[in-house]
């Protein structure tokens, strides 16, 4: 099963994006890590790892917003048991495309092909 994890410095960003994705792909396993546990802005390894573990899928596309989120995502990717594709696509567009295609049962090569032109980082 393939799922999506959203990572942002802001809890409101992932909350809003998750709402958007649920409109088009209710069946795709989706978990989020937004902001710090204190409610402050930022990302941490622990919260991303928790979102990865909480997702019922064993293959995950991870979308993130900014640079420090990327480094934390990479550390989770290196230590997690799941297969993680860390996408450098623009977060909203990338997650939207992936959710649509995963929901439609598209193959990984198709998803990757559609994400490629959206890469911004």
């Amino acid at each position: 099963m393939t799922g999506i994890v959203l990572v942002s410095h802001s809890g409101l960003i992932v909350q809003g994006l998750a709402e958007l994705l649920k409109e088009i792909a209710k069946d795709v396993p989706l978990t989020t890590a937004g902001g710090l546990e204190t409610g402050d802005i930022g990302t941490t390894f622990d919260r991303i790892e928790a979102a990865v573990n909480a997702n019922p899928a064993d293959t995950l596309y991870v979308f993130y917003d900014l640079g420090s989120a990327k480094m934390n995502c990479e550390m989770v990717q290196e230590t997690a048991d799941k297969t993680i594709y860390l996408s450098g696509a623009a977060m909203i567009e990338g997650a939207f495309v992936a959710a649509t295609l995963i929901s439609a049962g598209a193959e990984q090569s198709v998803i990757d092909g559609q994400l490629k032109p959206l890469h911004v980082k």
Partner: protein
Amino acid sequence: MDLTLARQWMDAFFEDLKAHKDYLSELDNPIGDGDHGINMARGATAAQEALTQSPPETLNGLFKTIAMSLLSKVGGASGPLYGSVFLAFAKASLDQDTLDDKTLSQLFIDGKDALMNRGKATKGEKTMVDVWIPFSERFNQDPLTKEDVDAMVLATKPLKATKGRAAYLGDRSIGHIDPGSMSSGYLFKTFLNVRDHS
């Protein structure tokens, strides 16, 4: 340097981070998002709490506990960066009761490499790497002083940032000390202080 001294070093570093919290954030204001001091102080407090709650019995355990605390609490780019540094320290001190000069030199080299790998940074981009490279290279050659470290930190001032958030500012990043280099400077200076007074 044994576990007791290493613990003193780390505590001195954390106290420095907390004492200079506002100054570090002030340095981060013009070229970053102004939270380096707050982030590092939060990490320092978390690390000290973790060390008090379950005091590590080995050097490896000391550095690992610190790495995990910083990873889980810092919240900015310095979380994964310093987290990777201390994970490298933990690895370099595995099965060691004391750190001799050779191991210490390796510790700083491994820390520098971890930093460069994690941040995909190279020399001259106005990042922490710009103090880690000279410190780790000169550690074995010169008897380094606090003044040397200050000079390394100050040398980031004229650089133009090409990495991290400061890179968005281009030429406007010139003339500001890199906040991450300043906090790394505290790590090096507290090290020299503990070593020279033991």
